[in-house]
Every structure is written in structure tokens, then in C-alpha cells.
């Protein structure tokens, strides 16, 4: 009995491994291996016809840390994350509350809020180009009615990053809304009744009861938004190309530029490693600190 049991168990294990193997091979080839090779490559110098690639240890990292552009791009990305995450979460919550209420035409509201999620970032950028173009763009045409000077939204360092941020928020808020919508629909109605009996105002109800109950959703959305603040850079290709003077350059765009425009793969690899390290921190945040509190659907 015991032998057939262990025999059976071994067979199961073998079967399990066989089923896993294809996915593991793929994940290894396109996720784990590249991670290791990025690290490895980042220790070498760029290969050119007159200078062969050689091991230079941490020099690429040193170079980056001395490069003011690196600090500017990193700061840009922090601002990008620091603004897009909270703003889109707040807007998403508002949208969800409205779309969940019994308002006139809430189906339309929901569709209107969610539609940007379905568009490619490139298309979104094209749509917004219309708004931002100086003089002839929609924003300037509207502000001109009030006598304002035309503003070169994408062409000035003061506004370029913000113009990019607005597009990201526009694209993402509706997506986060649906998570709040789902969460709101599971909150029992007696809570609200109890709140009314206690004489709580709407604001108090929102702050004291709804928000704490929505906390797991908020954390979940936040993790997603953090990842997106690294990932969502496609619109830069259309709107600003990271300019002017690097004012709107973000890390992933810079990685692309370093690797495919300047052909400096080792430097791009060093940047990749740094970004992966940050994402690793986010992962630890999720796995450790917030374990059990986030609903991971």
C-alpha cells in the first residue's frame, strides 16, 4: 500500500513537472534569463570597432550616478508616479461613487469614464495632440476666448511633463474605477442605514466607513498604478520624445533611447537593472507588508 502510494505520488510529481515545463521554459527564456543577462551586461563597456567590450565592474553605474540627466529622469519619473497615482485614484473613486449611484444615465457615465482604457496609448497621444498644439490646439483656442496667451504645452520644460501626466491620468482613472465599483457593490447597505441613524453626514460616512472598507482595493489599485508609472511611456513617442531638454523624459523611454538610439546596450542594461530593483521593492511591498490585506483577484 505504502509503496503504491509513493509510486503514485512520484507519478503525480512527474506529471506536474511535465505540465509546468513549457511555461517554465518560456518564463525562463523571456523573464528570468534576460534579468540575469541584463545584470551581467551592465558590468561591461560598450563594444565598438575600436574598443572591444571589456569588464568594467560598476563603472556604468558610476557614470549614471554622475550624470545629471539620470537624476533629472529619475526625478521626472518620481513626479510622474507621485502625481498620477494619487490623482487617478481619487478620480477613480469619485467616478465609482457616481457610476454606482442612481444618477440619470449612469451607464453612459460608466462608458465615458472607462473608454480611454480601451485605447492604445499611441492613439491617446494623437487625440491629445489636438488639445496641446500651440495656437491652433483646442486648449489654446478655449483659453484665447478669455484673452489668455497661447501656451506651448508640450514645448516648454515647465509644462511638458504635466501634459504627459494628464494623458496618463485620463487613460488610467476609468480602469481603476471598475475595481472600486466592484468593491462598492459588496458593501452591505445596513452600514449606511446605521450611519444615517447615528446622524453622520455623507462626508463622514465616506471618510469613516467607506474609505476604510475600500482600503484593500485602494492598496491593490496603488500597486497597479505604481507598475504603470514605470510602464506607461508610449505617449512620449508622440507628444514630447522626452523633451524639451529632458523635461519630460521617463526611465523606460530613456532605456529605449539608450539602447536603440545611442546603441549603448550596457548602459541600457544598467538602467534596466535599476528599474527592476525598484519594481522588486514594489513586489516585496506587496508580498510582505500588505499580505492578506489586498484582495488579489
Amino acid at each position, binding site marked *: 500500500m505504502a509503496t503504491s502510494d509513493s509510486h503514485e505520488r512520484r507519478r503525480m510529481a512527474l506529471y506536474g513537472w511535465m505540465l509546468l515545463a513549457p511555461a517554465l521554459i518560456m518564463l525562463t527564456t523571456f523573464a528570468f534569463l534576460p534579468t540575469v543577462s541584463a545584470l551581467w551586461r551592465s558590468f561591461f563597456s560598450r563594444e565598438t570597432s575600436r574598443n572591444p567590450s571589456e569588464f568594467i565592474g560598476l563603472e556604468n553605474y558610476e557614470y549614471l550616478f554622475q550624470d545629471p540627466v539620470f537624476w533629472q529622469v529619475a526625478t521626472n519619473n518620481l513626479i510622474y508616479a507621485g502625481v498620477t497615482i494619487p490623482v487617478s485614484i481619487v478620480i477613480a473613486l469619485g467616478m465609482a461613487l457616481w457610476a454606482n449611484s442612481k444618477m440619470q444615465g449612469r451607464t453612459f457615465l460608466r462608458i465615458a469614464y472607462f473608454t480611454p482604457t480601451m485605447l492604445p496609448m499611441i492613439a491617446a497621444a494623437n487625440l491629445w495632440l489636438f488639445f496641446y498644439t500651440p495656437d491652433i490646439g483646442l486648449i489654446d483656442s478655449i483659453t484665447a476666448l478669455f484673452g489668455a496667451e497661447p501656451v506651448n504645452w508640450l514645448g516648454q520644460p515647465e509644462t511638458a511633463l504635466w501634459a504627459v501626466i494628464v494623458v496618463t491620468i485620463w487613460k488610467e482613472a476609468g480602469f481603476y474605477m471598475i475595481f472600486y465599483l466592484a468593491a462598492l457593490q459588496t458593501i452591505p447597505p445596513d452600514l449606511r442605514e446605521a450611519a444615517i441613524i447615528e446622524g453622520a453626514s455623507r462626508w463622514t460616512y465616506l471618510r469613516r466607513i467607506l474609505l476604510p472598507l475600500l482600503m484593500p482595493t485602494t492598496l491593490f489599485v496603488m500597486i497597479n498604478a505604481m507598475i504603470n508609472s514605470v510602464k506607461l511611456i508610449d505617449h512620449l513617442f508622440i507628444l514630447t520624445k522626452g523633451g*524639451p531638454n529632458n523635461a519630460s523624459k521617463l526611465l523606460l523611454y530613456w532605456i529605449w533611447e539608450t539602447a536603440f538610439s545611442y546603441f549603448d546596450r550596457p548602459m541600457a542594461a544598467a538602467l534596466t537593472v535599476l528599474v527592476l530593483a525598484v519594481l522588486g521593492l514594489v513586489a516585496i511591498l506587496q508580498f510582505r507588508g500588505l499580505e492578506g490585506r489586498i484582495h488579489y483577484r
Partner: protein
Amino acid sequence: MNRQLTGLLGASVLAAGLAAPAAAEDIELTMYYPIAVGGPLTEVVDGMIAGFEEENPDISVNAIYAGNYDDTRVRAISALESGEPAQLSVMFSIDVYELLEQDLIVPFDDLVETEEEKEWLDSFYPALMSNGTVDDKVWGVPFQRSTIVLYYNKDMFEEAGLDPEDPPETWDEMVEAGKALRGEDRWGVMVPSTGYPYWMFQAFAIQNGIELMNENGTEVYFDSPEAIEALAYWRDLSAEHDVMPDGTVEWGTLRQAFLEGQTGMMWHTTGNLTAVRNEAEFDFGVAMLPANERQGSPTGGGNFYVFKNSTEEEQRASMELIKYMTAPERAAEWSIETGYVGISPAAYETEALQDYVDDFPQALVARDQLEVAVAELSTYETGRVREALNNAVQSVLTGSAEPEEALSQAQSKAERLLRAYR
């Protein structure tokens, strides 16, 4: 092998049509070309290729239209790296150092065989050869080449009390004309500062009497007093004289802005000439750029390159194709269709181009300017050096830095990049 594997997998999984492998005897060339797919110019190039294939039935040419110059460089190099076929390409004339660095191209000196071919190599305007010549060897042969010219709206000139046949010839005159042209929603002059800001800046610098780099591409002079003064002049067009909008002027939409009458004058590549001619609803003139210390413009545009990673037969076939495409008749046709400079004096002797310029003398300005033209900024590490200069220019134009400070920064960045090459 790789390609076949791809094809097989692709075909079996999704029946996606991939190019079938070439037949055995015929030579198949793949040429990367820097124009957007499907645009009107692809038809012109397709037409030339068809003509070539007719004359050379054993060679077939597959042109890949890859977008702008940067896209094309990335695409062509990617193809070479991953073993996709690519025998020749038209790329930015200033990509030469990058291509040399990566050891990707062969010099034309090694490709020319007959006397006739040597003559062919000498037949182009010298100004157009300088970017492609490194260490006394010719690596790039001109094809779609340009200079910067001044486009101006003659109707507006008249309206503003200026002589439409006498465009500004000096920096001061340009400011004066700009002031006269300035109106409530009309600017005097626009010089584009996105896309290729270094190129426009180079024009100002040349006019102020300084060339920005040495011949070997190992030194730059961004922080010279003349360069600083040139950038200050550019900035002052808006900051002091208010004849140009604040901030950056978009390269891509400038033509549209000029056509819509938002500005009386613009600086732009001659490559836009035909498009402006076709679309302008007013009378416009073209002039050489104004002078300060001297007249001048950098050359611009794309050269033919032949890739090392190809067989001798393919290189021969590439030579045939390049000779065909650069022959006076095609050069004339290309110039007429686009506005780019006819690349050889012989092109201007063709009947087609002579008839054309009789009717449209503006087309001669870019050629005449070749006399005073200088090679476009090109160095080792060219991408990053250019980027450093672009950033300096943009930061000054947007008012976030002073010319001296910005250009010194660009200079020290470039020094750091170029140290390894001296």
C-alpha cells in the same frame, strides 16, 4: 535559416504571409529607406526601383520604408544584427561615424572598379561629399540632400511694405523684416527647434563664423564665443525682438503654420520645397539664409551606404542600384518631386530640371547655397553629442538657461564622450 524557421513557424501557426526566400540565381537586395510608409514619395522611389529592375532583370530590390532617419538607422542596424537581409540603405549622412563604430559599412573606394565609376564618384557637389568622407575614404554617396533655406510669404511682404523681391540678407535685416511682418496673430519668422535643433543652430553658428566640429569628428566647439553669440541671437528673436514665438517651434507642424499664414518667414529644409509649392495658396519666395559674419548653412539629408555583411555579388548589385538612382535623370526627378538638392551639376543640365527651374527659380536656391555650405554636425558618439547640443539649444530657447551656461555644459558633456576617440 533563421528566416526560414521564422517563416515556417509563422506560416504554420497563423498562415501569416512572410516574404518567400529568394530564388537561387537572382540577386535580391533589401534597401532601407528613410521615408514614411505609403507616403507619396514611396511611389517615386518605387518607380525608380521598377525602372532599375527593368534594366537589370537579374536583380530584384525590396525597399523597406522605415520612417524618419532615426527610425531607419535603428531598423537597418537591427536587421543586420539579427541576420535579416540588408545590403544597402539611405541613412542620415551624419550616421557615418556610428556605422563605422559598429563596423557595418564598406567604403565606396573599394567598390568602384572602372574608370567610369571613379568618375561617377567624383561627379557630385563637393559640399555634399564631406559628411560621407572620413579618413580620406568615401563611405556615403549623396542622394536626398538638403540645405536650410529661408521661405517667405511674398503677399505678406507686400502687405507689410517690404520688397517681395528683396528678402533679408543679414541677421539685422531679418529682425527688421520680422518686426515689419509681426501682426496680432502673425509672427515675423519661425526657426524650428524640435526634431533637429542642432541643425538650425549650426546654421546660426556658421553664419557667425564658426564651425562646430573638426574634420575627424573628435572635437567640438560648442562653447566658443561665436557659438554663444549665435545662440543668443536665436533666442533674442523672441526674447528681445518678439518676432518669433516663445519656447520651441515644432519642426513637424511648421510647414503647416507657414502655409496657414501664421508666420511671414520660416527656416526649413529644401526637402519641403515641393510640398510648400503644392499647398501654398499665396505667392512665396525662397532665399539663402541671412548672413552675419558670412553666409552659410549646414548640408543635411541622407546618403547611400553599402553594408559590409553582404556578398561580393550583392555589393556589385548595390553599386549598380546606387549608380542608377544617383544618375542625373533620377537626381533631377527626385529634386523636382521633393525639393531636395540635385546632387550633381549634371542633374541641373538635364532637360527636366532645366525646364522646371525656368518655371520655378526658387528651386535653384538650395544649389546656389552649396557654395557656402558646410558639413552637418557629425562626430563619434554622434547621437549623444547631438542630444547634448539639442538640450542646450532648447533650454536656452525656453528661457531656462543662459547661452553661455548651456553651451558650456553641452561642451563638457561632449568632451566626456569624445575623450576616448582622441
